[in-house]
């Protein structure tokens, strides 16, 4: 048996650890010019004039391109990946801050930057559309007012999936419905290497060589041919080492096209590499989904329906990178890991004055949003039902015997064993122990959260009949050549950005042919040397291209069988493939391996008619279905309510991606995605002010997790092979990015439950967390039912050993608190009390939190408090008048809260007083 599979150091490391990788900015050609892009400082402006005279007069400037120059070549606009068009260099309006206005080409990059300052732009500022919720209101200015957009009113499309009527009926019958609005913020994949290109047009041969940061070199070649009119066989796209991509290096960006035009214009190679601000402000945003979600269930926790209404902010051009037939991406997989009989979602996409793009950022497009929505709703439902979130999930998971499983919105999941993954995650995390620890900490006034998420990804697009991008069906080729000495070269269409294709794909081929992976060289990233295919994104490399490699290898193996039969003078039927060689049945020692067969295949051996010599084969793999990796995650956080800061203490991740070819690489992929989860949940967001200024244009503002925010990660694995992939593998590159943000947010929300916080939108920065605590307790904001129950008189009575008398429990808790607070408060005035009833009607409108002042405590006997609590059926409230309570909740207040008190804010109290006169 071949030992090709298994952990193995990567082939690509040798150059990268020596600083000898070749990234885009490392490409340097003789005579090369350097480019820089002038970008709009305004988010929305009518362009009156762009004067490049002074820039052109700069001694080091070779040329300056404007939209007018491109228009003369029919290239001022380019088609997007979603059927829209996007300005390459703006001619009429600037539609987002950072939009490309002019392209300066100079002798060096410093000079190119200098010349940007010499371009004079005359523009009339227009009101930008920055708030997605009012974009289609009718009053909003039009982002797109050019010909062909009349009447669209900033609306791009409406799309829906699922059975609306059946879902409506399910909700009508439901015992419980939980509803929530949540935003998956605009984020950016921010690969450490930005985007760039070196275009080298040879006017003599009419040939363009394009070095470019692309995850899809072949698709880029076709697009460049379509855009520029150059014949496709005269275009060679080379994608060098990529410093990450994560979806951001799928699209064609204006800078690439400008570099091509500039090289054709100047006859010299032209390099353009964006800087970090350009990267964050103009290329490849992801998510920006504004979601209204509803989940329906029976009172015993059986989920019966799921519904979502989405407003999607696509920015100024609809450039989302997704299969043509799915304008909402794969969002409608949103029933995710649960057996939910009825589901319906509708999506409205709108234009705003923000950067276009819409890349997947480490997921199959929109699956991350779908998983986040359902996992948050399930957690909220658990709260509503006062049920443990793990138990609620267990009751609703798709069961192993249901596979292949067809979801309510029409997805056919290939394989899965969700209960096993969840059970393993709970066991690895010692879930019961964590809950005990949490209870103990809450009693001490410490806020620890435990968050669970499950996810199901849908990766490895096509099949081609369902999935294409700009008309290119999503199937990928592989070319395998076995040399006379028995070493092999595999050419693939997909493009590594760090995933280790050079290693994993060699292992795949080696496993099929009984070779050493070191004897298989993988070629990628050069369209002249590799077969056509759609590239690497949506975790499709192993599911699609890996399958193509295996199919090609198996074709080689079958050819080898014919030759082996000749060599061994036996019938083909007498041969079996065993332990990496064709062996004669019943005579293990008699056989031939690929190395010997390869020599024979290239020799003078007389082959029968119809059998070609050599040992080469190619394949195009059109996947019959997507693969559906899944997993179960547990995240443990500690939240400091005084500062709102969150520490991710533990992250336990059980992933199932089917058969693991190189587990070391698989685990590395998961590590990356879990760090993404920490970043996306806690710090990453691209934000804007009302004037359209991007507030996240550098790494000082767009925060990425460092080694201090990401904990030591704890992984577990289950293996449920894909039934349709040739080796049973599923994609893994993006699973953890899909599954982990919800685990972090669920964990933080769990930590904040005692404060009555039910939901807060990502990123959960300290300010957001602190604000959520405050708002959760403020006027008009209801506490979650789960939290109220936990603080009920019953609970307090039990705490006090008075299980039969909730009212007395409340009173004793109050009395106890009072003494503690007064003794330990260091002179702070402490208020503890229970509503005696006379304020009941007045305070009802203010929410579930009521309070009485200090005098109430000292002035009332326990009996009066008992009476008050009974009358009011209200919660105990504690707070400190002089410090605004939550602004500086010291140990004592935290302890009080944990014992059942609800801290109140000063303004709430003022509000109350005002209303009471």
């Amino acid at each position: 048996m071949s030992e090709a599979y298994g952990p193995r150091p990567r082939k690509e490391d040798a150059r990268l650890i020596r600083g000898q990788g070749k990234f885009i900015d490392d490409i340097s050609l003789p005579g090369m010019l350097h480019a820089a892009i002038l970008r709009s400082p305004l988010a929305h402006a009518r362009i009156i004039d762009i004067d490049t005279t002074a820039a052109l007069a700069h001694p080091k400037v070779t040329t300056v391109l404007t939209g007018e120059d491109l228009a003369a070549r029919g290239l001022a606009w380019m088609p997007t990946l979603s059927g829209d068009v996007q300005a390459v260099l703006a001619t009429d309006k600037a539609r987002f801050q950072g939009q490309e206005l002019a392209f300066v080409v100079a002798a060096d990059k410093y000079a190119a930057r200098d010349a940007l300052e010499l371009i004079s732009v005359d523009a009339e500022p227009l009101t930008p559309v920055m708030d997605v919720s009012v974009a289609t209101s009718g009053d909003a200015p039009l982002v797109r007012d050019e010909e062909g957009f009349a009447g669209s009113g900033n609306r791009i499309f409406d799309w829906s999936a699922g059975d609306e009527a059946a879902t409506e009926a399910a909700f009508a019958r439901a015992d419980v419905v939980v509803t929530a609005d949540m935003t998956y913020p605009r984020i950016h994949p921010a690969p450490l290497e930005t985007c760039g290109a070196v275009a080298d047009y040879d006017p003599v041969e009419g040939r363009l060589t394009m070095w470019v940061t692309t995850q899809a070199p072949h698709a880029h070649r076709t697009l460049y041919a379509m855009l520029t009119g150059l014949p496709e066989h005269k275009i060679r796209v080379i994608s060098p080492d990529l410093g990450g991509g994560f979806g951001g290096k799928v699209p064609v960006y204006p800078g690439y096209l400008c570099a091509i035009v500039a090289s054709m214009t100047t006859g010299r190679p032209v390099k353009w590499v964006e800087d970090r601000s350009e990267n964050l402000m103009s290329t490849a945003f992801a998510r920006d989904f504004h979601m209204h979600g509803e989940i329906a269930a029976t009172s015993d926790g059986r989920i019966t329906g799921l519904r979502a209404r989405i407003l999607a902010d696509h920015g100024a051009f609809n450039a989302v990178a997704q299969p043509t037939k799915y304008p909402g991406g794969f969002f409608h997989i949103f029933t995710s890991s649960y057996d939910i009989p009825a589901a319906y979602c509708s999506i409205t996409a709108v234009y705003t004055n923000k950067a276009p793009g819409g890349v997947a950022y480490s997921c199959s497009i929109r699956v991350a949003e779908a998983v986040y929505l359902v996992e948050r709703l399930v957690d909220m439902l658990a709260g509503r039902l006062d049920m443990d979130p793990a138990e609620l999930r267990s009751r609703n998971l798709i069961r192993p015997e249901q596979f292949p499983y067809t979801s309510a919105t029409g997805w056919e999941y290939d394989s899965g064993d969700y209960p096993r993954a969840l059970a393993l995650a709970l066991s690895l995390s010692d879930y019961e122990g964590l809950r005990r620890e949490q209870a103990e900490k809450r009693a001490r006034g410490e806020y620890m959260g435990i968050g669970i998420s499950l996810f199901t990804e849908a990766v490895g697009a096509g099949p081609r009949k369902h999935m294409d991008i700009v008309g290119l069906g999503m199937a990928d080729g592989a070319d395998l050549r076995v040399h006379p000495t028995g070493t092999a070269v595999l050419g693939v269409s997909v493009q590594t950005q760090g995933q280790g294709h050079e290693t994993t794909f060699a292992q795949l081929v080696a496993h099929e042919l009984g070779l050493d992976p070191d004897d298989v060289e993988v070629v990628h990233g050069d369209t002249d040397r590799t077969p056509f295919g759609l590239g690497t994104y949506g975790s499709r490399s192993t599911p699609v291209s890996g399958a193509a490699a295996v199919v090609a290898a198996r074709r080689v193996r079958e050819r080898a069988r014919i030759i082996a039969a000749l060599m061994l003078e036996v019938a083909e039927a007498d041969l079996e493939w065993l332990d990496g060689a064709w062996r004669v049945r019943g005579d293990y020692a008699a056989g031939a391996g690929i190395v010997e067969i390869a020599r024979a295949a290239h020799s003078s051996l007389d082959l029968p008619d119809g059998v070609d010599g050599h040992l080469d084969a190619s394949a195009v793999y059109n996947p019959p279905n997507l693969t559906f990796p899944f997993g179960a995650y547990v995240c443990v956080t500690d939240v400091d309510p005084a500062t709102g800061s969150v520490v991710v203490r533990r992250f336990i991740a059980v992933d199932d991606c089917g058969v693991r070819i190189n587990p070391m690489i698989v685990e590395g992929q998961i590590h990356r995605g879990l760090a993404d989860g920490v970043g996306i949940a806690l710090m990453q967001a691209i934000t804007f002010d009302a004037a359209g200024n991007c507030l996240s244009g550098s790494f000082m503002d767009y925060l990425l997790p460092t080694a201090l925010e990401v904990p030591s990660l704890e992984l577990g694995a289950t293996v449920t092979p894909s039934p349709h992939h040739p080796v049973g593998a599923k994609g893994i590159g993006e699973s953890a990015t899909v599954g982990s943000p919800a685990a972090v947010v669920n964990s933080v929300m769990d930590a904040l439950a005692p404060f009555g916080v039910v939901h807060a939108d990502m990123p959960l920065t300290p300010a957001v967390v602190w604000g959520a605590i405050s708002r959760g307790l403020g006027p008009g904001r209801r506490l979650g039912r789960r939290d109220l129950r936990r603080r009920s008189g019953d609970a307090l009575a039990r705490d006090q050993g008075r299980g039969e008398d909730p009212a007395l429990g409340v009173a004793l808790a109050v009395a106890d608190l009072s003494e503690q607070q007064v003794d330990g408060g260091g002179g702070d005035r402490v208020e503890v009390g229970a509503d005696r009833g006379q304020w009941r009607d007045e305070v009802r409108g203010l929410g579930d939190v009521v309070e009485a002042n200090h005098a109430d405590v000292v002035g009332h006997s326990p009996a009066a408090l008992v009476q008050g609590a009974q009358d009011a059926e209200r919660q105990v409230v504690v707070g400190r008048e002089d410090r605004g309570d939550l602004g500086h909740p010291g140990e004592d207040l935290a302890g009080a809260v944990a014992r059942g008190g609800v801290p109140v804010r000063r303004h709430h109290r003022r509000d109350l007083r005002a209303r009471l006169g």
Partner: protein
Amino acid sequence: MKITMYVNGSEHARDVEPRMLLIHFIRDELGLTGSHWGCDTSNCGACVMWLDEVPVKSCTVLAVMADGRRVTTVEGLARGTRLDPVQQGFTACHGLQCGFCTPGMMMTARWLLDHNPAPTETDVREAISGQVCRCTGYQNIVKSVLWAAAHEGDA
């Protein structure tokens, strides 16, 4: 301005613009492209190299500030043909994926081990906390550095 720098043990004299950044000098003037540029704002650390014996973010150092000083980059990390234990650790423990942050991470790691031969996991995390990796979740970088510490004396 005329400057002279000692890069990985070799002397280099150039006439540069005063505003030229050290990272651009090393990459574009000397052709040592192992050190990378990633953010402009000293946040990502892809450009970390040593100025004399201290790691610096070379995107915020002017080349002229390095006049007369020693610079060590990833290309100077190996001892002859023998890889530094840090380089060995990164490949042994899958401490890199795309490889873009790797040179900077390794330069910091080498500095750490020179000053703290037996670091804890926390020491390693703190040492690299000024640098960003988008691929590894840091887990295997930490492991790689600890591996290097454990194999420092190996022949």
